[in-house]
C-alpha cells in the first residue's frame, strides 16, 4: 500500500509515528475517541469514589478534602476530557465523509489540536499527586475558592485549562473551515446532514466562548500571582464578576456539549424509522436559535447572588424561551418516529432513551429556571440530578449511540447486538436508579458537593450509589463490546451498513478506506 497507514506489522516505531504525526482525519478521529473514552473511565472512577463515600452517612473511605478534589476532577475530566473530545472525534471521523471532503481543511492543525490534549490532562491529573492536592473548588472554580483559598496547584489547573481551550479553539476552527470550504459540489448548506449543521453551530460557539474561559483563568492567574484584584474584594474587585464571566462561557458550553448530541440522534432516528428526518429546516433554525439564546441567559445559574428583581425576571423568561426551540426538536424526533417502520437496534435504543431522558432533564431545567423556586433548589442534589439527565442521558447516551451506529462503518465489523442491548438496559436502568433519587434528595434539601449528609438522606443515597455502580459496570461492557468488535466482529462488506441509512458516509466502502472522496462526489 503506497499511502496506506502503518500497521503493527511495520514495527512499533513506524506504528507509533503514524499516530503521532498523522494528519488523517480518520486517524485523528480515532485518537480523539479513544482518548475521550480513557478520560470517561478516569472521570467515571472518580464518580465511583464519590458514590462509594456517599453510600453511607459518615466518613468511611476518603477524607473530605479528597472528596472535594474528586467532585472537582470528575466534573472537569468529564466535561473537558470525555464529552467534548468525544464529539470532536466524531466530527473528525464523520464530517469529511458526510460532506464529501477528502480530509479536514487544516490537517496539521488537526494533529496539533489533538496531541496537546493529553498534556493538558496529564498536567491536570498530576496535581492529585502533588502537595496540597488537586483542584478542590468545584468544576465551576468560583473565586475566591479558586484564588484566595485555592491550593498552590491551581496554577497547573490554569495552564491545563489554557491548553485544552487552545485545543478546542483549533479543533473548532478546523471544523468551520472544513464545512464552509470543502463541501462537495451540490452540497448546499440546507442539504448538509443535521450532524454537520449542529457541529458548524457548535464550533462557532466554541470559538466565541473558549477564549472567555481562557480570559477567566488568566484573570485568576493574575489575581493569584501578580497582585491584581479582578475578583478580590479587598482590592476593589468583585467575586460575583467571576461568576458572570464563568457562566458567560459556561452556559454556551452546555449547548456546546448537547448540540452535537442532537445532531447524532437526528442521524440515527431517521435510519431506524426508515423515514427522512421530520422538519429538517426547523431543526436547523432551532439549533441556531438555541445557540443564540445561550449567550443571553447565563445569570440563571446565579439567581442567589442578589440580583435586582428585573434581572431575575429577564433571565427567567429568557431561559424559559429556550424550551421553545428545544421542544421543536423533541417533537421533530417523535414525529420522525411516528408511523415509521421502527426497529430497535442498540443505537436506536440509546437514541430513544436520549429523547425521553433529555426531555425529562429539560423539564427539571424549566423548574430550575423559575427564579423564585431556584432559590430553594440552588446547589442541591436537584441540580446535580438535572444536569446529569442532560449531560449523561443527553451527551453520553448519544455518544454511545453514535459509536454503535458508525462502528461498523469505521472498522468494517458488526458489534454484538445482544451485548449492545444488554449494555443499554443496564445503562438505562442504572442511570435512572442513580439520578432519579437525587431529585428527591435535592428537593428534601440535600446540598451538593459535601462529603457527608444528614441521616434522613441515607436511604436514597444508598440507592443512588447502587445505581452508579450498575451504570459504571455498563461502561466496562461497552469497552469490551467495542474491543471485541474490532478483534472478532462479524465482517460487514456492504457500503450502507444499515437498511435505512442515508448520507454520503454510507456510499463509501465498508470499512471506510484510509482516504475517501479524493474525487468529490456529485450531490444532487
Amino acid at each position, binding site marked *: 500500500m503506497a499511502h496506506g497507514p502503518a500497521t503493527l506489522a511495520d514495527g512499533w516505531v513506524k506504528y507509533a509515528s503514524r499516530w503521532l504525526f498523522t494528519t488523517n482525519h480518520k486517524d485523528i478521529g480515532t485518537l480523539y475517541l479513544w482518548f475521550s473514552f480513557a478520560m470517561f473511565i478516569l472521570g467515571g472512577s472518580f464518580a465511583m469514589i464519590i458514590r462509594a463515600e456517599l453510600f453511607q452517612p459518615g466518613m468511611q473511605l476518603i477524607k473530605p478534602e479528597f472528596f472535594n478534589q474528586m467532585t472537582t476532577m470528575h466534573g472537569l475530566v468529564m466535561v473537558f476530557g470525555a464529552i467534548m473530545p468525544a464529539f470532536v472525534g466524531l466530527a473528525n471521523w464523520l464530517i469529511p465523509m458526510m460532506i464529501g471532503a477528502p480530509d479536514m481543511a487544516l490537517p496539521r492543525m488537526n494533529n496539533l489540536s489533538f496531541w496537546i490534549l493529553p498534556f493538558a490532562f496529564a498536567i491536570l491529573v498530576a496535581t492529585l499527586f502533588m502537595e496540597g492536592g488537586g483542584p478542590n473548588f468545584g468544576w465551576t472554580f468560583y473565586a475566591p475558592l479558586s484564588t484566595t483559598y485555592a491550593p498552590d496547584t491551581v496554577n497547573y489547573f490554569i495552564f491545563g485549562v489554557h491548553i485544552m481551550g487552545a485545543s478546542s479553539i483549533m479543533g473548532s476552527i478546523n471544523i468551520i*473551515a472544513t464545512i*464552509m470550504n470543502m463541501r462537495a459540489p451540490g452540497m448546499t448548506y440546507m442539504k448538509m446532514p443535521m450532524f454537520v449543521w449542529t457541529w458548524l453551530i457548535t464550533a462557532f460557539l466554541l*470559538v466565541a*466562548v473558549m*477564549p472567555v474561559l481562557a*480570559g477567566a483563568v488568566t484573570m485568576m492567574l493574575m489575581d493569584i500571582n501578580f497582585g491584581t484584584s479582578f475578583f478580590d*474584594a479587598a482590592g476593589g474587585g*468583585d467575586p460575583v464578576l467571576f461568576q458572570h464571566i464563568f457562566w458567560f462561557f459556561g452556559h454556551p458550553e452546555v449547548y456546546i456539549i448537547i448540540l452535537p448530541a442532537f445532531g447524532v440522534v437526528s442521524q440515527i432516528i431517521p435510519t431506524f424509522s426508515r423515514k427522512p428526518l421530520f422538519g429538517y429546516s426547523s431543526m436547523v433554525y432551532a439549533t441556531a436559535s438555541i445557540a443564540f439564546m445561550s449567550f443571553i441567559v447565563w445569570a440563571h445559574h446565579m439567581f442567589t447572588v442578589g440580583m435586582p428583581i428585573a*434581572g431575575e425576571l429577564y433571565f427567567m423568561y429568557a431561559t424559559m424561551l429556550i424550551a421553545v426551540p428545544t421542544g421543536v426538536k423533541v417533537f421533530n424526533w417523535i414525529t420522525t418516529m411516528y408511523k415509521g417502520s421502527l426497529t430497535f437496534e442498540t443505537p436506536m435504543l440509546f437514541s430513544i432513551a436520549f429523547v425521553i431522558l433529555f426531555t425529562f432533564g429539560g423539564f427539571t431545567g424549566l423548574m430550575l429556571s423559575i427564579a423564585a423556586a431556584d432559590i430553594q433548589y440552588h446547589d442541591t442534589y436537584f441540580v446535580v440530578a438535572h444536569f446529569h439527565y442532560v449531560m449523561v442521558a443527553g451527551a453520553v447516551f448519544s455518544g454511545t449511540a453514535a459509536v454503535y451506529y458508525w462502528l461498523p462503518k469505521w472498522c468494517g465489523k458488526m458489534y454484538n447486538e445482544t451485548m449492545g442491548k444488554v449494555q443499554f438496559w443496564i445503562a438505562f436502568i442504572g442511570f435512572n436508579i442513580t439520578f432519579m433519587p437525587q431529585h428527591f434528595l435535592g428537593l428534601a434539601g440535600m446540598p451538593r458537593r459535601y462529603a457527608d449528609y444528614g441521616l434522613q438522606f441515607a436511604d436514597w443515597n444508598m440507592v443512588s450509589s447502587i445505581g452508579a455502580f450498575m451504570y459504571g459496570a455498563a461502561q466496562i461492557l461497552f469497552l469490551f463490546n467495542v474491543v471485541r468488535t474490532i478483534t472478532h466482529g462479524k465482517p460487514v462488506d456492504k457500503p450502507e451498513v444499515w437498511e435505512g441509512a442515508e448520507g454520503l458516509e454510507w456510499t463509501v466502502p465498508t470499512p471506510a478506506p484510509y482516504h475517501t472522496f479524493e474525487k468529490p462526489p456529485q450531490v444532487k
Partner: protein
Amino acid sequence: METSHRSLLAKLLALAVAMFLFAVFLLPPLYDLFCEITGIGGRTDGKYEAVVLTVDTSRQVEVQFVAANNAEMPWEFYPLEYRVMVHPGESRAVNFFARNTTSEDMIAQAIPNVLPNNAAAYFHKTACFCFANQPLGAGEQAELGLVFILDPDLPKSVNTVTLSYTLFDITDRSTVAVSQVQ
C-alpha cells in the same frame, strides 16, 4: 494551504483573540460601570466633591453602620455610632474605631457597601478612610473618619440606609512598609 482556508483561519483566530480581549479588558470595566450606574451590588462612588445642597428638613433618614472583618482579619473594628438620623442634603461626620490586636505591623483596606441597592448611588462620601488604606503598627489603634451626605434625590421609598464596611488584610499585597505609609 488554499487562500480560502487562510482567510477564514485568520478571521476565526481574530474572533478568538477578540473574545479573549473582550473577557479580560472589557468585561470587568463594563461590569464596574454597570454596577456603578445601577447601584447593583451596593457599590458607592469614590470621593464626592461637595456642592451646596439644599437640606431637606422635611425628611429624616436613618443611616446604620455595620463593620465586619473579612476571614482571618484579626483587628478590632466597629463604628462608634451604630445609627444616626440625618436630613437628606446634610453633611454628617461619624467615626469608626480600629485597633491592630496583633504584634505585627499591618495594612488594612475597608470596602464599603450600601443597602438597599437603589440607595447606593445617592450615598455620597466627601471624606472616608476607605479612600486610602489603613496602616496600623502592632498594638496601635485609631479613629477612622467618614463624612457623608445623602443626596436629596434619594428615592422616597428609602427610609433606612445601611452602610457596611468589610475590613481586609492587605499587608501581603502592599509593596511599602507600614511605617512608610504612616
